[in-house]
């Protein structure tokens, strides 16, 4: 046939096929070394600090004091109260973020085509930095400048309504954190919802499910894995957060919002007690890992099996 008259392809050069392992190593080792240096080193150094007493007055000095820093944490009343505030803030933030995210996703899903551009507006709070969110919510909540007083003013009252009260500041901050993080959750949930087959909704209609039943049995189940992943992400972010609380309340009023990160900041950078701060920071790390681990055990394993 005609093809045989064509010139055969010249024999390809023998390329030295590198093995998967060496290719993976060549690519990842430099990055891993960088990460090791800039993540593991500080971690190791913090570990070192946590066994020492660091002084700056009269020249820098580090004195070995064994487990003293760690045992001090246990008897430190401010540690336990800060931990309590961190947990309270985290639980509230996670629940609010997922709930608001789900609500926004449901609204976005039902938008008719000509209103779709609203999606681009709803995402905006996600782009606001935590420190920006802190600034927004401090002015929004304060009695002098806040929305509460403004609303009271409409009704002819001249009371100041302070949303950042010692009693409910943690709840107020959780609302702000949810404001910041919920849009991203909403977008992922929306993407998930759009892949749910429309037939399932037809089936729900045939089965004469109520709206709530449809939501519970049709809308929600495919979202559960995403919800789990975001509950982990939100947990980590809420426990790590510092800049948001720093700009929003500075731990106030009267220490009522001094979560663990804020207390750590004060110990290390205001009191300059670096050894003690380092020791306490390992407790924070343990709490973060413990919380995500617990979430996985209680919830994630179940979702993976399905």
């Amino acid at each position, binding site marked *: *046939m005609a*093809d045989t008259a064509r010139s055969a*392809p*010249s*024999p*390809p050069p023998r*390329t030295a*096929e590198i093995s998967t392992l060496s290719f993976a190593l060549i690519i990842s080792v430099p990055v891993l070394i960088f990460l090791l240096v800039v993540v593991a080193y500080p971690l190791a150094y913090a570990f070192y600090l946590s066994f020492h007493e660091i002084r700056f007055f009269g020249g820098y000095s580090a004195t070995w004091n064994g487990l003293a820093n760690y045992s001090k944490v246990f008897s430190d009343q401010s540690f336990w109260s800060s931990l309590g505030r961190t947990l309270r803030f985290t639980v509230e933030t996670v629940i609010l973020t997922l709930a608001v995210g789900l609500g926004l996703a449901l609204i976005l899903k039902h938008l008719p085509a000509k209103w779709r551009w609203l999606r681009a507006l709803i995402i905006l709070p996600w782009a606001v930095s935590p420190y920006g969110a802190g600034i927004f919510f401090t002015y929004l909540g304060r009695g002098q400048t806040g929305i509460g007083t403004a609303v009271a003013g409409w009704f002819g009252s001249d009371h100041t309504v302070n949303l950042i009260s010692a009693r409910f500041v943690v709840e107020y901050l959780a609302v702000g954190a949810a404001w910041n993080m919920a849009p991203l959750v909403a977008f992922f949930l929306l993407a998930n919802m759009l892949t749910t087959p429309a037939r399932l909704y037809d089936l729900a209609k045939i089965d004469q499910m109520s709206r709530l039943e449809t939501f519970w049995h049709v809308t929600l189940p495919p979202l559960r894995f995403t919800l789990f992943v975001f509950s982990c992400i939100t947990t980590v972010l809420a426990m790590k957060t510092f800049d948001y609380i720093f700009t929003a309340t500075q731990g106030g009023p009267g220490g009522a919002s001094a979560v663990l990160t804020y207390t750590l900041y004060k110990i290390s950078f205001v009191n300059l007690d670096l050894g003690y701060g380092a020791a306490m920071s390992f407790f924070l790390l343990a709490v973060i890992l413990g919380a995500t681990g617990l979430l996985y055990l209680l919830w994630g394993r179940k979702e993976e099996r399905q």
Partner: protein
Amino acid sequence: MARIDLHNIVKTYGSHHAVENLDMTIEDGELLVLLGPSGCGKSTTMNMIAGLTEPTSGKILFDGADVTSHSPHQRNIAMVFQSSLLYPHLSARDNIYMSLKRSGLSKQEINARIAHAAETVDVTRLLDKMPSQLSGGERQRVATAKAIVREPAGFLLDEPLSALDASLRLSLRAELVNLQKRIRTTMIFVTHDQVEAMTMGDRIGVMRKGRLEQIGTPTDIYNRPATLFVAGFVGVPPMNFLKGALEKADGRLWLTNPSLKMEIKGEFANAAPQKEVILGIRPHLMRLTEAGASALPLTVYAIEQLGNEAIVICDGPDGGKIRVVAPAGFTAPVGARLDATFDSAAARLYDPASERVLAVTGKA
């Protein structure tokens, strides 16, 4: 175009044996179908022929030359992957061009070849489309053009039709066979669909659990399945099986079980008696009859009307389903008693322990 030899190929993943001691020859210009259920090692075998996977031991020869350590490109094979995989970000033309990019051909030659390949499988008008704009059948054709443009020594296809709908599969099947005969390339086609295998292959290699159960022409595989697995896997409707014992009496061989006593004639008449055997008989070779001594008592379970014939699915005496082909329009109520007979010379006997066909010493 090449003759491909596999010598004692073994592939293990840890303790899992994906392919065991495989010996096989694919003749130059032949279309060999590798058939088997998922996980039987057929794709692994194809990947080793392609050079995508290195065998744990054994040798692969192309036209007598050892290519075991050569890359796919050095072997000059072409491959169409599952669901006709294409580079999603490249147009059909660029997808085909990628096959020749490393070939060292001149620009002119490349363009001529692309045009020729596109014409061969009739995709010239699709060349500037992106894969996402192509239908399943069009993607398959473009993937084929990408493969043949190299004028490969071997053309390998890994279940390329499995994602397509039935009617498209039917027409593409014929198209591929036609193409293979026209360009006379050695072609290996992997599938789990036995109809596809029967209709396409010059020869079929049936694999199971990493072993080659039987290799032969479709007629051979259909009429003379070497193992119980091949007998049950190939053929629609599937072969019927009856348990029984082989006994010698009056110088003749009898198959007996509680509901049947039948003289074995033909090929297996001289088989050695044994306590347990399995008799296999194709549904097309059975007839529904009046009750008789050597008839099999059956109870109707369901009837499938195919237009040209009817398949009567029955509960057999030993619990298994027995299918009998009846004339078109045959009806009987579910649960009705029927009897069926067949010529024992057309049946095959298998040893349930080894699952292989019984050895016969000589012709009757």
